[in-house]
């Protein structure tokens, strides 16, 4: 029982990172129906910026987070204007934007490769006061606990904002019908740029925390999470922020159980069996969005 509890907590820690990554990725997916794979590179760059600020300037992790979020958000906005926007009017916009985003991913990853000289870098020791906490039978580090609280808190805030604010309604309007959105007075470009900014900022935050908790800053950091994020989105339901949270947590817990009870070599098997299972049994995911209703 204690062991089960411990592995569940471990899974939630891992899953909260997946969720943060997936919700940003899903936000763009839902708003523009494009597979913006360069999100992975924005994640990587979030880690690189965090690493640079902590190593070169000696900042503590907490101080870097706003800067990292801003930088990653702006990078993603640049990606929107340089890679995506001019393609949206095309007939094959989704495919063209995917290919363009893929190109951006490759370029950004390559630049990161050169910057890091191909090496795996580490966040300096002591950027965050890590110490073990014992909550009853469960162990969790202060860093892991912070990650869970920050991730779930931010995603909940995002979900609330999407549902209850004018900005959230505008984002959903643009997602549903860009042309009508502009007729309703919405500056579609500004909303899209805002979506890319929020998505990039979440990716940057997730990356800075991952880089610190898992001791890794490399050019390929973001790409490794791309497929997991996709799985989280399928499980949670495309286009739903709450779904990305649920999907991320479920995938995180499932992969941790696989490692804990079976063997880490079964981990990907379990994750993708879950993905395929959902596609068969519940293709809309846990939280199917109202946009699905629209297509009935």
């Amino acid at each position: 029982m204690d062991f089960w509890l411990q592995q569940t907590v471990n899974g939630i820690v891992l899953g909260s990172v997946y969720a943060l990554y997936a919700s940003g990725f899903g936000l763009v997916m839902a708003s523009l129906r494009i597979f913006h794979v360069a999100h992975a590179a924005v994640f990587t760059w979030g880690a690189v910026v965090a690493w640079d600020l902590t190593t070169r300037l000696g900042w503590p992790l907490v101080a870097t987070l706003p800067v990292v979020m801003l930088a990653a958000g702006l990078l993603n906005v640049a990606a929107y204007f340089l890679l995506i926007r001019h393609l949206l009017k095309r007939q094959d916009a989704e495919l063209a934007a995917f290919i363009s985003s893929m190109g951006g991913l490759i370029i950004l990853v390559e630049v990161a490769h050169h910057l890091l000289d191909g090496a795996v870098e580490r966040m300096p020791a002591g950027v965050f006061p890590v110490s073990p906490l014992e909550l009853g039978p469960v162990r969790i580090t202060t860093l892991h606990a912070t990650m869970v609280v920050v991730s779930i808190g931010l995603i909940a805030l995002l979900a609330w904002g999407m549902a209850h604010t004018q900005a959230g309604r505008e984002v959903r309007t643009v997602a549903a019908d860009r042309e009508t959105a502009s007729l309703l007075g919405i500056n579609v470009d500004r909303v899209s740029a805002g979506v890319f900014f929020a998505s990039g900022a979440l990716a940057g935050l997730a990356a800075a925390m991952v880089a610190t908790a898992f001791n890794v800053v490399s050019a390929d950091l973001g790409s490794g999470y791309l497929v997991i994020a996709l799985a989280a989105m399928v499980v949670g339901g495309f286009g739903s922020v709450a779904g990305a949270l649920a999907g991320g947590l479920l995938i995180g817990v499932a992969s941790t159980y696989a490692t804990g009870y079976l063997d880490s070599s079964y981990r990907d098997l379990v994750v993708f069996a879950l993905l395929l299972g959902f596609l068969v049994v519940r293709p809309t995911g846990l939280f199917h969005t109202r946009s699905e209703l629209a297509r009935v």
Partner: protein
Amino acid sequence: MSMKPTRRLSRLIVPGAIGVLLAATGCAGPSAGDSDAVQVGLLANLSGPAATSFGVPFQHGFELALQQAKAAFDDADVKVEIQTQDAKSEVTSAVTGYNKLRQAGAPIVINDSQSPLGQAVAPLANDDKIAFLSGAGSELENKDGFAFRFTDLGTPTTAMGQYLTEHGAKRVGVIVASDNPSFATLADTTEKGLPGGFDSRQEVASTDTDFSAVLANLRDDDVDAVVLSVLPAQAGNLMLQMDQSGGFDHVIRAGTVAISSETYTVAEDAADDFVFPQVWAPGMQGGSSFEKAYADKYDESPTAYSALGYQVGWTVAAAILAADEDGDVDGASLRDAIPAASTSDLVAEHSILSLELTKDGAAVSEGVMASFADDGSMQVASN
């Protein structure tokens, strides 16, 4: 040390064919220097990924040994010259380099590391009757006994198991990077030294970065020692996360011969008390004069691979002297002389580590238990 899995056969044959062509057309061979001198072929990885860790320190140690052996050569009136070719950490260049050395008339060729390189050159050396000393980690084809490996991963790794038993470990766990066969082999070899075997076996992938699940498993299995059979950087990351998650304060943490200074770069203070087997470490008995001479000559501290180069250098010198004493110095006479030379008095006099080369081409090297000093350099473990 060579950890790379065997490359495909075709990659060996093609460069081999190119080498034969080059040889047939007689192009691109260095001219032999003094025709009387024994040409010692050093096929070192002086560029490419293996250069910094293996090729360059090996070359330094090797050259230092032959320089120090000059007095002994003079006494025996033997002239020795080193012909160096850059293997560039790749099979094609290694085969080309080997062919140039063969054309220069070298009866012996030494290659510092990388199994695929050794595996490409060994059949050629057997055909050409050239004694070949290789740092390959894997088995080499050796039909006429001309190929010798000077790396022994097994003995020091098994010694790790014994070390843990001697230090009171009752329940030993292991973390293996199971997507790399070398680490599975190292784990199995470590287990041979443990009477009870491993009580907990956790597998990770080389790219994994979050270890909370496997660490929870190890805590649950109540181990008092953990062997990290993973890449050096991953071992560092594991120890950091052990420290952060807590519950491993009284657990002995041990590594394999694959551990390098990179582990310390990642883990820093978390690598305190980490023990791991190495072929050689600074501070080993009888090594101080070597360390000093090396530092004087190259303005840097020797690594385990410098030490290996030095030890192999003296073994080669002893073999040449023994072959010369018995008659001609050629590939066959060197082949016959090498096993005895590796444990000869001359080598023993200058020896800094135990390395016995056997007739069947294997090596027996006891190694040493090492740990990281406060500045991150390796040192002989305190007990």
